[in-house]
């Protein structure tokens, strides 16, 4: 190691660059120096510092975290490759300390014995969990079937190794039972009992994993067998004998997935009452968004009733007045609908009616009184200044009162 380091230094460096550490841990073995330095959270200086502490390695331009750091994370997260070998070291250490303790009954050896018993317990469980995860992952995601078979066989070996270790540990416990009971140490007693229980449990778990591995290997074998069969079928098919020399027709006819039987997705009609509820409204909005229908978007969901709702009754007032407003509009012929609404002087009780309100009123009237209005389908422009004082203009359709025209015609006819 290049520098003298202490725990504090390493921890603070790791913490300081936790973003980078996390990133590198997630993307092991494919991040180049340039990519790493391009990140905003790592300066050149920090990078050099981490390298000098041996927290980062660089090999052929690819950056990787120190293996010790990666291993630590993997241990905590119970992922990564299964490495049962070190359990053996623990067992040997345990045996060594037991020997020491047999010679001199000193407390320090007892402490080490406890430590290693605990470690063995934790390590065994962790390795087994990793084994399970790896076996599953290999079966589901390894793309090359030859590698897949090999890997599964390897895991089978590893499983045997772990079983050996479990047996070994059991032996050690059995041999030293007398010694342990002599110590009269309740903590040790608890640890040994916990270890025994978990050994039995782990053994069960391993048997399960074994069945899984066998199952997976059989499945792969099945796939390979079926592939041979598929090739034979194809051969038969190429000879034009598929329908005669095999029971292809019967088998395929009896297949039941709905996809191959022309079953269309269910078409259920929705109750109109439901559409008027809030849930129905959400549904309507989804449909409206999908098909870009603005009409369905009009009706909003009923919001929460505010505490001072009595004062806000004004809003309703505008709605109630619409009909009269339209009547008045129909009675005049000076303005088109938009102009009429813009210049209309609303009663003071309503308060200040903003441009937006007038525009929504315009839309509302246009939609509701479609039949009594004459749509000219011609655009006119209205210019105004917005809140920021900028010049804006909006186009609107010219809408005239139809009744007027009819009256004129009638008058003409009368004349």
């Amino acid at each position, binding site marked *: 190691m290049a520098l003298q380091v202490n725990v504090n230094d390493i921890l603070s460096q790791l913490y300081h660059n936790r973003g980078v550490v996390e990133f590198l841990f997630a993307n092991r073995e494919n991040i180049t120096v340039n990519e790493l330095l391009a990140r905003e959270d790592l300066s050149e200086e920090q990078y050099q510092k981490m390298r000098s502490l041996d927290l980062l390695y660089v090999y052929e331009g690819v950056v990787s975290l120190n293996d010790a750091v990666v291993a630590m994370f993997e241990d905590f997260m119970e992922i990564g490759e299964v490495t049962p070998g070190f359990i053996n070291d623990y067992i040997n250490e345990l045996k060594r300390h037991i020997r020491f303790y047999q010679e001199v009954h000193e407390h320090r050896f007892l402490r080490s014995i406890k430590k290693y018993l605990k470690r063995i317990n934790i390590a065994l469980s962790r390795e087994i969990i990793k084994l399970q995860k790896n076996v599953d992952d290999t*079966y*589901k*995601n*390894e*793309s*090359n*079937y030859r590698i*897949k078979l090999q890997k599964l066989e390897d895991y089978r070996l590893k499983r045997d190794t772990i079983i050996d270790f479990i047996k070994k540990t059991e032996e050690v416990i059995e041999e030293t039972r007398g010694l342990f009971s002599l110590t009269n140490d309740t903590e040790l007693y608890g640890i040994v009992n916990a270890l025994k229980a978990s050994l039995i449990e782990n053994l069960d778990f391993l048997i399960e994993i074994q069945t899984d591995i066998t199952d997976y290997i059989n*499945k*792969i074998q*099945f*796939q*390979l*067998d*079926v*592939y*041979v*069969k*598929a*090739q*034979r*079928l*194809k*051969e*038969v*098919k*190429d000879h034009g004998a*598929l329908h005669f*020399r*095999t*029971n*292809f*027709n019967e*088998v*395929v*006819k009896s*297949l*039941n*997935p*709905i*996809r*191959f*039987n*022309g*079953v269309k*997705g*269910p078409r259920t009609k929705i109750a109109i009452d439901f559409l008027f509820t809030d849930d129905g409204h959400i549904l309507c909005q989804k449909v409206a968004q999908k098909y870009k229908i603005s009409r369905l978007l009009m009706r909003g969901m009923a919001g929460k009733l505010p505490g001072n709702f009595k004062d806000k009754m004004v809003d309703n007032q505008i709605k109630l007045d619409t009909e009269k407003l339209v009547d008045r509009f129909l009675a005049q012929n000076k303005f088109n609908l938009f102009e009429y609404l813009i210049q209309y002087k609303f009663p003071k009780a309503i308060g200040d009616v903003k441009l937006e309100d007038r525009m929504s009123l315009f839309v509302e009237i246009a939609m509701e009184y479609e039949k009594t209005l004459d749509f000219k389908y011609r655009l006119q422009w209205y210019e105004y200044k917005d809140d920021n004082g900028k010049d804006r203009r909006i186009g609107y359709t010219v809408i005239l009162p139809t009744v007027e025209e009819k009256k004129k015609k009638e008058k003409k006819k009368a004349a």
Partner: protein
Amino acid sequence: MTAEDFNLPKQTHDIFAIMARGHFISSNGTKDGMGRLYDIINNPENFDRLQAYFNVIRYNIERGNNYFYFSKTSEANSIIEKKLETFERYIDVVDLFASMDNKITIGSRFRPSEIAEECNANVRLKQKLQKIPMYRSETLLNKVRDICDLMSRDSFLELEDEQSESYKVLDAYTYLLDVINAIAIYDDSGDGQGSGIIYN
């Protein structure tokens, strides 16, 4: 009547949405949280409730090896011709996959260009690919793409990464293998080795 009333998992709608389209739910699928949906159906308590719930509308959940799909309790076998055609084509496709140097099986990841490449280099594979009836596919690569597209639509494959065009074979693919396994070849002279056909 909502899913909660039956004490159903809250993903019931998602499950239905996928399976009612005729798709399989595979345990190794990743799109739309498919793996998670699989786990939910696979939970025995959920399975019974979902089965009862869907049975009311005459859908039946069928369980396969690491996949689920819907069958219809009262079904009309009206489109047998199309069904036969579909599976004839699947025999072609599975045969092609089986004859590849690096056999494509469940969990395999591949890109259409890889298959096209191998077919280009191997005359036998090339012939196999060319004989698979697909419409409007001029080049080998496009043909492989069409096949992959077809199989993704039947939810046997999953387009894992659109950028790199990489596909993953889902567990539902076992269904095809099961079908092939179920077909018996008559007057077969024993174990197939005496038939004079050389397999890859």
